[in-house]
Every structure is written in C-alpha cells, then in structure tokens.
C-alpha cells in the first residue's frame, strides 16, 4: 500500500502530522445514510481517503436453513475490498484478512442489535471498500451502524469506531495509511457511547501501560466525534425536508 517515502516525517517539531493534522485531529469524515435502492438500509462513508459503501438486508429468511436459530436472529457480515481499492490490484476473492475483519465487525455489531426480537431470521450486512487508505475497519463499522439504523433494525445504540495509535513516540488519533506502515502502534476501537461499551478492540504494536490507557481514551474521543456524525447523517435523511431516497 503505497507512500513508502524514506524521508517521511510522521510528526514535525510543531506537532503536525504527515498529512497536516494535529495529534488529536481525525481525518475529514462524511457519512451519508441511504443511497441504495434495493437494500433495506444503506450508508456511505468517506473517512479521509477511504470510501466505503454498506448495504443491509433483513431481518429476512435464512439460507441455508440450518444456519437459522429458533431462539434468536443471526447477524452475518461480509467485508470485501474491490480489486481497484488499493495500489496493487487486489485479487477479488476474499482473503484471510477480509474474513477476519468480517468477523470482528460482526462481533462488534452484535451487542448493538436486538437480534433476540427476530428468531429464525438473518440480518445481512455487506461492506464494500471502494477505496482504502488505512482504518477501513473502523470506517466500515461506523457506516454499518448507520446502515442498520437506516434499515430500521432495533438497536441499543450505534457503534462508532475510530483508531488511535502511536507514531513518533506520540499517541495520535485516527491512524492513516502512512502512520500505520511506519508508526509504532495501531489500535482500532469500536464503542457504543450511550451504554459506554467497547465492542471492537484490536492492537498491533507496543505500548506501555500508560500509553495504552491514553490510547484507549484518545480512541474513544474519536469515536464520540464519529458518533455525532452518524447521528447527523440519519437526521439529515429522516428529518430534512422529508427527502428519503
């Protein structure tokens, strides 16, 4: 994934990062609820240079039947990257990385959705990464929450996600691609603000216990910024001039 500058300065003397952001500043985030005609719910997110579309179906019949559960509905998530989403063309078949990300996103969303209200059904979340630039899983999870809400599926809260990390010995918010490649740590966090629950947490890299605490705090701050934008996206669709396409 590009940008292999040997001269790359991750943090300059004024505390400005390689893409011009401050230490605690997220990238530009734009979330739009709806947009797809056939999906029951959908959302589009631009998170820095990430561009991700999410479509949701359900609750609907489960195929194959043996997957259905008589006590609760089930959630299925597919995270997939387009061949043209990254610098080197990606093989369209799902990679081990995509399968793992599908699973962590599924497990991050499950606590938010009241699946027990819909036994024997499935909710399908399809995530398609059109362009990737570091932090896709967080952007995808945030958009998936909006798409689920757009589909009218009962939820305890939306999951907002943002990464924090460490580059140039400093804890930073929202790790971009260059910082992910050249930095010291990357910690994606998924968080439900109104219930104060972390539902996604991963870490690559080394942090001291103090740094770890600061990193989680920083990440949650980022999640809260994302959460406001998620609510704004839904408000714009459902409360602005009654325009609902």
């Amino acid at each position: 994934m590009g940008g292999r500058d040997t001269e790359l300065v991750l943090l300059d003397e004024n505390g400005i990062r390689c893409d011009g952001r401050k230490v605690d500043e997220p990238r530009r985030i734009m979330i739009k609820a709806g947009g797809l005609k056939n999906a029951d719910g959908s959302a589009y997110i631009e998170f820095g240079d990430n561009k991700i579309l999410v479509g949701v179906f359900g609750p609907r019949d489960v195929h194959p039947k043996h997957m259905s559960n008589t006590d609760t509905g089930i959630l299925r998530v597919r995270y997939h990257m387009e061949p043209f989403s990254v610098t080197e063309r990606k093989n369209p078949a799902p990679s081990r990385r995509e399968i793992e990300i599908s699973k962590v996103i599924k497990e991050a969303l499950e606590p938010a959705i009241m699946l027990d209200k819909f036994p024997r059904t499935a909710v399908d979340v399809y995530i398609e990464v059109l362009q990737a630039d570091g932090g896709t899983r967080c952007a995808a999870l945030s958009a998936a929450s909006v798409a689920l809400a757009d589909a009218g599926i009962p939820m305890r809260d939306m999951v907002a996600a943002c990464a924090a990390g460490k580059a140039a010995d400093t804890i930073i918010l929202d790790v971009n691609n260059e910082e992910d490649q050249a930095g010291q740590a990357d910690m994606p966090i998924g968080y439900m603000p109104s219930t104060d629950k972390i539902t996604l947490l991963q870490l690559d890299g080394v942090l001291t216990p103090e740094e770890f605490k600061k990193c989680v705090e920083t990440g949650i701050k980022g999640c809260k910024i994302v959460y406001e934008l998620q609510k704004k996206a839904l408000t714009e669709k459902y409360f602005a001039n009654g325009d609902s396409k």
Partner: protein
Amino acid sequence: MTSVSVIDELKKFQILELLEQGKRVDGRAFDEPRKLVIEPNAIPKANGSARVRLGDSEVICGVKIQPDRPFPDMGDKGIFICTAELLPFSHPSVETGPPGPDVIELARVVDRGIRESHMIDLSQLVIEKNKSVVGVFADNVVVDYDGNLFDTCAYAATAAILSSKTPKWEMKNDVPTLIEGAELNIPITTIPVSVTMGKIGNHIIVDPNGDEWDSMEARITITTDSNGNICALQKGGNGGFTFDEVIQCGKISVKVGATIREKLKQVMGTKK
C-alpha cells in the same frame, strides 16, 4: 440477468398491454435509453475510474494498470481484462460466492465489446516483447440493480478506460521497473458503445428496466464503434428474433449508440 425478482403475471400483462398501445411502463419511447449519469474519476487511487448510473442501475468501474506477462501467443500485445461482479447489496437475491452463469455472461459480453472494438491499442502497451507487457484490468462492481447491467457495465468500463492514465515501465535487470513521474494517456483508437434491446411480444425496446427485463422473451446486445460499425453482438434469453428484427436492432444500436457516444465524449472531454 439475475432472473430472480418475482414479477407477477399481472405486471407482465400490464407491460405488454401498454406496449400494444405504444407505451412503456416508465413513459419512455421504445428506442429511448434511461437517463445516463457519468461521474469520472470516482476512485482517485485507481489509474482510471467511473461511477455510472443508467436509470436506477449503478456500476462503479476501476481500472488498474500494471506490468504482467503476455499471453503466450501474443507477446507483442498488452493485456486487457474486464470483469464484472454483482455486489451483494445490489439486489436482495444476490448471494456472495463464485459468480453464476448470468454474471459470467455479463462480464464476458462487456469484455468482448471493448476488446473486439480494439478500443485500447494494445500494441503500444509492450515493455519488452514476449517478456513483459502492460496489463489493463477494468473491474466493474454493480452497486444497484434495475435491469440492463450489460450497458451500465459497458458504459462504466468505457468511461473508466477513457479517464485512465498509464504509468511507464522499463526493463532493468529483466524486471519491469517503474519510471517515476512518467505518465501517459492510454492509447485509444475508438469508443465502443453497447446498446441492449429486449423483445416483449413483437416489440423491441431499448434499455429495458428491471420489470421489463423480467418480462422479456429475448434480448440482444450490440456494440458499435466510433465509425458506426458493429463490433460485437450477443443474443440471450429463451425467445428468438426474426431476421428483420435483427436488422432493425442493428440500426437502433447505431443510432442510439451515437447519442450515448456523444454523451461519453462530452463528459470525458475526448475527441475520438
């Protein structure tokens, strides 16, 4: 394509009845395609891209250009490969996993239209003969479905190719090496435009929407180039066309194709 959506007999009957009166369900003329919206360079990281909406069918195409080995019998030509995939949120019936026959046909018809028109001058995409050539990959993903994916994908791929810039490579120690900063326009010889028509009763309609798609007995996709020549054709569906109908379809494809080509040129700012 994906002949899955349940369309009840009443709707089919209504579509046919309207056609008998010279009308279509959405009010279009028989030879009128739906509104075409082209957004070039939707994916800045790709070498070329476009997001195309034809009515309510929507496709994103991204072009990736990278060195590759030539096909054994074509060492003096670059490689062009076009694919198509239905994303699972494009329609409730679409399932993940390997593509079915419908989707494979879609990808191959779109690929053939562009390949057979010789849109890209592949002879200019050779790094070293028989060893290394430039590969152009146009990957179409269907985002929303409302009939006629053949044309939606074809227009997306064509627009994405027109928007493409290709990097340059040279052979260094038998390895193709990128020349930093060198960028060329992709060598274009013509602009292929496909026009898909459906047959319902004895009526030929251009660019069938989702409901019409499910009602038709047969379809035909004809690709024409900038000179108004026909360069690829595919008939599908379990009905048939008479000779006169095929000739009529050819004429329609040239005429409708020309207006769509003008639109592509205007949006993409190309002369050819």
